């Protein structure tokens, strides 16, 4: 009797919980369990090289202290920061520029959109081959031929030199990594009603004023979304480093340092500690962005 009453009272709630159970179970299985397990391991001295001789011991936060003297991780954080900032600027600038241009195209805009989106379909492995081809360090490398002809410079070993290694790796993603951002900007631009521009055109003809006073404010939700995506993509970057310059101190990223620590050195506890530090960094940046978003964003 009590049960019937209970079921009647909470029928709607129970239905909701039942429906939520499936995604929650998946979240629990693939994220929550991994999250806690990873955190727990980061508090131990779990290193496959020594696990058989010394076992697995609880060391509290010693790994979190040690990773900040790990040259790979420190270099990785530095390069990740540079990569994130450069890609954030480059990809969003080109993405917005291309989207703004395509929106103005009267006929065939979608064809341009499709063509410009194409590079994003190229796999990271193919992209790395193109990068290796362009930055071939011998005199037959395309870029070396160009600098030789234009500036009479000898062939450069782009990935070995500290000054050119990271910029060389960033070259292609900087110019071609805007595809997804462009699509989002394009959708954002299309959603701005033309009435705003018609009304504003009575006051000014300046396209710059229209852009900064109307387009940009109304595009701010999209802008923040793209910035958030850029930051998260930037912090998680690993593929170009792993495919083009594995083990190179001058290009290593934080996630790649984490990968090396786990898979090459089998020091899983430090690797998980690095993962948690990155998680905290991403979380803090997201919270900051959300706070800023709340203050600055303009909804129509």
């Amino acid at each position, binding site marked *: 009797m009590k049960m019937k009453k*209970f079921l009647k009272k*909470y029928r709607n*709630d129970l239905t909701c*919980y039942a429906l939520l159970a499936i995604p929650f179970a998946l979240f*629990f299985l693939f994220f*929550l*369990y991994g999250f*806690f*397990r990873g*955190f*727990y*391991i980061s508090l*131990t001295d*779990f290193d*496959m*090289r*020594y*696990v*058989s*001789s010394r076992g*697995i011991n609880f060391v509290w936060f010693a790994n979190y202290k040690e990773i900040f003297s790990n040259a790979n991780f420190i270099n990785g954080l530095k390069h990740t920061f540079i990569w994130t900032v450069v890609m954030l600027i480059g990809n969003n600038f080109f993405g917005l520029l291309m989207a703004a241009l395509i929106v103005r195209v009267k006929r065939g805009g979608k064809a341009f959109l499709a063509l410009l989106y194409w590079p994003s379909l190229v796999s990271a492995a193919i992209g790395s081959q193109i990068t*290796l081809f362009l930055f*071939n*360090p*011998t005199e037959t490398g395309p870029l070396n031929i160009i600098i030789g002809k234009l500036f009479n410079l000898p062939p450069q*070993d782009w*990935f*070995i*030199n500290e000054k050119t290694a990271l910029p060389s790796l960033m070259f292609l993603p900087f110019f071609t990594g805007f595809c997804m951002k462009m699509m989002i900007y394009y959708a954002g631009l299309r959603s701005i009603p033309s009435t705003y521009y018609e009304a504003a055109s009575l006051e000014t003809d300046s396209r710059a004023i229209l852009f900064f006073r109307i387009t940009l404010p109304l595009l701010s939700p999209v802008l923040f979304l793209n910035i958030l995506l850029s930051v998260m993509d930037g912090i998680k970057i690993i593929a170009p480093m792993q495919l*083009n*310059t*594995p*083990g*190179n*101190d001058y290009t290593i990223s934080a996630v790649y340092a984490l990968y090396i620590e*786990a*898979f*090459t*050195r*089998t020091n*899983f506890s430090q690797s998980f500690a690095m993962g948690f530090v990155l998680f905290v960094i991403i979380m803090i940046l997201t919270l900051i962005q959300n706070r800023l978003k709340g203050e600055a964003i303009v909804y129509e």
Partner: protein
Amino acid sequence: MLKKISLIAVIAALLWILCACTPKIMVDNSNFRYDPENVDINMSGELTIWWAPMDYMAEPLQHAIERFNKIYKNIKINVREKVHAEYYDELNLSYLNNTTPDIVRLDHVYIQSLGESGLLVDLDAMTEGKVSEMEADKFLPATWEAMGIGDSVYGFPYDASITLLMYNDRICREVFGEDYQPPKNYEELKEQSIAVYNYENAEGVKPYKGFVMPLNAADYPYDVFLFNGWLERHGVSLLNDDRTACTVNTEAGIETYRKVKDMVTSGALQYIGYYPYLEESFTMSGETAFMEMGSWVYDSVKDMDMDNDGKCDIKVAMMPRMVDDIEPYSTLGVAGISVTSACKPENRPAAYEFVKFLTTDYESHMEMMTRMNVFPSLVDGFDDEYYTNGDEDWQEYWSVFKQQFMLGRPRPGTVHWPDIVTAIKKSQAQLLLGGAYTPEVVVEALSDKIDSILQS
């Protein structure tokens, strides 16, 4: 009410997660003993072997399993084929996930490294020394020694390979004339490489590369594999005998780096940090005169006959001497088959017998080696007909390979090997940069770095 129930459920779930978080590594280093002199052919068991072969290595393994099962009918062998490039990463991760196979094929550096970490079964301890007494003599000494550290034996040697100097005879005859002789020492190698690189054909084009070698190669540690041979040819070992200190910071070690630098700056050595390009330039486009290479490329080069004279363009020679009174050593590559510590003790006798069969059964062993075009580790196999008059095209090649094989030096296996590889790659990058990075500075930094790695 519902909120309370939900809260209790969530707290219970989190507590359960935390309790389940403790990593449980299913390696068993108990003192399990097995007497290989009293073999029970009716023993039963189910074993998993990881195999990361090229396609052509799958069939010989299946044939070996069929032969094995004719004797041991109750032992089931499951083969898990793995992607070659991710093999070692996946193996490392398998210990974390408790998905480690019973048997693995590994490069000897990994055998020593994982063995030292207690992740492979010490067969010597398991058989109370009988494995060495009964089996060691069947194998070439250098290959057997590469399977362990001290008295420990962590696997049976399987395939072995050696690098020597391969040269494109067509290019060399075009540049130096029909009575061409390959270089016998460093000076000749440098001189000939420069001549090939600067050679202009009738159209005034410089079509060839001289000597190519991967340095600071981005793709895998093969550059360090070759570089180890350069050190050995100068009489330098990377580490001391007990692998506790780096022994590169000597005049001979500096001289090695000096010569590499000299080869690069003089235009004799065309290096690139991406190894496949180099191999392609030698084995496919045929534009490179000299490269250190092993017999495994046989299938790629056997049909290279660009001048259509009916002869293969590629020939082989002993490694050029770097120093007059030091033998022209090169790095010995050995892979072995090991039983992992994840193998349950009750299955270890079966695993031991299978590994022993796979590596010592002549027919099975040789089928694999001849398919791979590498050397067997079995003493008897070394003189197999295949390496004397089995393959008409390569008869003269194998005799040179055999001579070079006798001068093979394996790399020092240690748990720190991946870090040492990274340190050597960095030293190569610094060397190529020049400027303040003189060979002396580079070698000193490398030595300090490896010492700190070994002490960590």
